[in-house]
């Protein structure tokens, strides 16, 4: 996975709280292999009416070229399905800004190069206002700052996640550097006889 420090794109505002992973991708699409692409499933039911037609008023249907999502509280709550992140990434999104995120969603996002950035209430209001003027924005992972025109808003991101996004690090590679500590630990754990599943069950 390639790292990144700056992203220039267009932002779209989705003023909804609690957009859960079942909204991000309904369960019925999850048996598809990733190689087929998940972008067309993103918020599949949320952006359509009962007859299955795209609702023109839905923000994501208007801004089809958006790569930065400004969302409401508790974004990505619910299940651990990483497919929710695949749908965003495959639809071209690089960053999501929200006041809070579902924990598992946020770590899944970082594992796929998607930025889950936390905005405070003041920042969110400033971004919303700026977006009424223009959608072009710059995400700066070095300064932890989102710029829309002259408006600059800081965002919060855990440092270990920032480094991972910037460097495009892969956890398995990092972990293998700790092989000696892991094998020491395993030997200690093995001495605790109750820990291991009873053989031959």
């Amino acid at each position, binding site marked *: 996975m390639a790292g990144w420090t700056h992203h220039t794109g267009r932002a779209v505002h989705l003023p909804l709280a609690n957009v859960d992973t079942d909204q991000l991708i309904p369960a019925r699409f999850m048996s598809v292999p990733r190689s087929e692409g998940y972008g067309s499933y993103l918020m599949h039911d949320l952006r359509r009416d009962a007859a299955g037609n795209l609702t023109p008023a839905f923000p994501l249907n208007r801004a089809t070229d958006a790569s930065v999502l400004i969302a409401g509280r508790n974004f990505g709550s*619910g299940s651990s399905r990483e497919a929710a992140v695949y749908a965003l990434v495959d639809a071209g999104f690089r960053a999501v800004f929200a006041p809070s995120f579902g924990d598992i969603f946020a770590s899944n996002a970082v594992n796929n190069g998607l930025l889950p950035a936390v905005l405070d209430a003041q920042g969110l209001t400033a971004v919303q206002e700026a977006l009424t003027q223009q959608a072009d924005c710059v995400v700066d992972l070095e300064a932890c700052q989102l710029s829309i025109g002259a408006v600059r808003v800081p965002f919060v991101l855990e440092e270990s996640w920032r480094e991972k996004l910037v460097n495009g690090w892969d956890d398995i590679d990092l972990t293998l550097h700790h092989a000696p500590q892991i094998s020491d630990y395993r030997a200690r754990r093995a001495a605790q006889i109750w820990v291991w599943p009873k053989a031959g069950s």
Partner: protein
Amino acid sequence: MEMPSTLLDKLWADHEIVRRDDGTSLMWVDRHLVHEGSHHAFAKLAARGASMAEPALTFAVVDHYAPTRGRAKIADHDIARMIATLEDNAAAHGVQIFGLHDPAQGIVHVLGPEQGLTLPGLMINCGDSHTSTHGAFGALAFGIGATEVAHVLATQTLWQRKPRAMRITFEGVLGPHVTAKDMALGWIAQLGTDGARGMAVEYAGDAVRGLSMEGRMTLCNLSIEGGARFGMVAPDAVTFDYVKGRPFAPTGAAWGAGLAAWRRLVSDRQATFDREVTIDAASIAPTLTWGTSPEQALPIDATLPQLADVPADKRPAAQAAYDYMGLTPGARLVGTPVDQVFLGSCTNGRIEDLRAAASVLRGRKALVPGLVSPGSALVKAQAEAEGLDRVFADAGLDWVSSGCSMCVGMNGDLVGAGKRCASSTNRNFRGRQGQGARTHLMSPAMVAAAAVTGVLSDVREVVR
């Protein structure tokens, strides 16, 4: 003198291999559970040409796509392929699988405890958010995404930041027909869906001690709906009795060593938590959700809030929920007609849940159709030995095989568009049980009460 520590501190210290300068810990995984949805993770492993580090510590389970009828020949190609893919991956890596026809088949969070794979003091992971269920045993258990599942497959470890510790204490005694489900929906309604974000919740107090393992699992299961990735209960005699004699549980000297290790898994008296909440158990009524988020929950005897009475930041969500659910502010919950009912899931698909529902249904007829899917084939067998299947059938409900079923609908058990379902599951998200489905979460006894009256009802009135 040693610093007083919480249960979380002790479990964390026991599993931490390395802590980086940035505060992220490399943790050892004692048990790893995979299901059909884990195909992405196996594909990632294959893409790197990597092999599994510890195949003997991973167990595969067919549950999410498991057909609950007509298992001999699966008609749907996608479902058959999902199950076959898991079987193939398990075979390729030498992982033990509980397949569709295994006498112990069941939902991963029902099967793990039942088989004694879940023990106090372990770290347990699964690519499923309700992995918090296993914390009921005093284990460190949490759901992970596919990239993390691949990491566990390849290394048997996980990078994780230690969450903050939160304790929810339920003091006193629950009222009649009030259950662990009501405790969980109650605290989530009170604190909100992000009330425990980034926290590991330890449940304590007399009302928690008084719960069976089934009840404790229900409580821990729903932690994620309040934003917590972890839920846990300190192990005690109830825990040890449940574990003893299970197929994979330790025996002989290992059992003694286990008991000695497990008895220290309590929060020290002087330990401090980042957040403490105390709830009076006697104040909890049978509770159900009315909206599309678990925090939109109320006692059954409540009326639906007027929008003006909803906090401003939650008003748009309440309005949207009313529209989706077809409900009106100011209306009473009691008496709202339901179209169907569902009993099952990893939240409330255990034997105690089926007994509670059956005790309401016995000698009564359901006025609406409904599905009863036991949490595992062993729960099914036990229920049949007790004659509960007859109670459900006599009431007019369908008694089917075990799996995730209508909790998520991946196997084709769906609620129709616009239909209102009284459900013992864990998520009332829009479309969770099917496109346009209207889900009300509640306890199994409350589901049974809705079945026999055809409307949302207070189980305490129904059984009177």
